[in-house]
């Protein structure tokens, strides 16, 4: 069960990629892309999260059980966010009689 682990070279490349992405997201924030600014910032954050998770936290090399735990975490998070937003933004759809 002794699984493969990344080498020093892999760690270094991931680190350099993370630094570049951090610089990139900071730079892009100063360019007006309208709505896209938020999308790009969050996409870069997600990419950085994947790099840290897959390589620094060894998810790339992990067993299925660990990956299921991570997916379960995201699943419950998605439930929480989507249900809360569904509630908040659908409230105005139904007009309640004023008291």
């Amino acid at each position, binding site marked *: *069960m*002794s699984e493969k*682990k*990344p080498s*020093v070279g892999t*760690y*270094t490349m*991931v*680190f350099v990629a*993370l*630094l570049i992405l*951090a*610089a990139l*997201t*900071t730079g892009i*924030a*100063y*360019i*007006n892309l309208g709505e896209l*600014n*938020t999308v790009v*910032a*969050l996409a*870069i*954050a997600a990419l*950085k*999260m994947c790099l*840290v*998770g897959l*390589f*620094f*936290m060894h998810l790339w090399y*992990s*067993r299925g*059980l*660990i990956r299921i*735990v*991570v997916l*379960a*975490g*995201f699943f*419950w*998070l998605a439930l*929480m*966010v989507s249900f*809360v*937003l569904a509630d*908040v*933004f659908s409230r105005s759809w139904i007009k309640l009689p004023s008291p």
Partner: protein
Amino acid sequence: MSESAAGSPLAGPSGHSVSAALHHQFEDIEQQRDAGNFGMWVFLATEMLFFGGVFTGYIMYRSLYYSGFAAGSHGLEVDLGAAMTFVLLASSFTMAMAVHAARAGKRVMLVGLLSSTIILGIAFLAMKFTEYFHKWHEQLVPGLNFHPAVESLRGAPEHTVELFMCFYFFMTGLHALHMIIGIGLLSVMAILAWRGKISREHYNRVEVSGLYWHFVDIIWIYLFPLLYLIGGRYK
């Protein structure tokens, strides 16, 4: 398992460091490591929801009071935030290298890398508290000292900017608390490593501490754009 001597699995000559490090409920050191990692990942999944609650609140209120959140975001120092991001990414790198050194059984290198991670973590907190100090001077601390200059509101209602600053302090504060716990954890690991308690076979404690540290890094990876960047920095 059945071939090992019957009777108490606890007793018996612990000749190798492996059997000394192996707790009696596990069959072998690999299974013990797996269980340790699994436990930490389950904890991190609960942490995702713990932080997730604040993130959900942030998303909701940001959509409701966008102008206040944009004005509040403009009041934060992007240079400082970016510097903190670089420092924290570097600390994650030294942490990953520390686990690598622990696996290879390199004691001195492990202590060095753990210490570097701790120092980078402290540098991050120093910058964070510098920013808190600036916010106090700009009178942007909700509840205690909130009298922002009119131009810093950028036309947004004052209480919506205050709401943003509530999220700012709560999210970064919760993150800073995790950093402080992580620094404590890594200090214990550094002492254990220095005393030779971490071996090639038994380095799981360093490994799970690393998982925690990287998780805290990932939280900041999201906090940085959410708080500092996406309030319309351009123009």
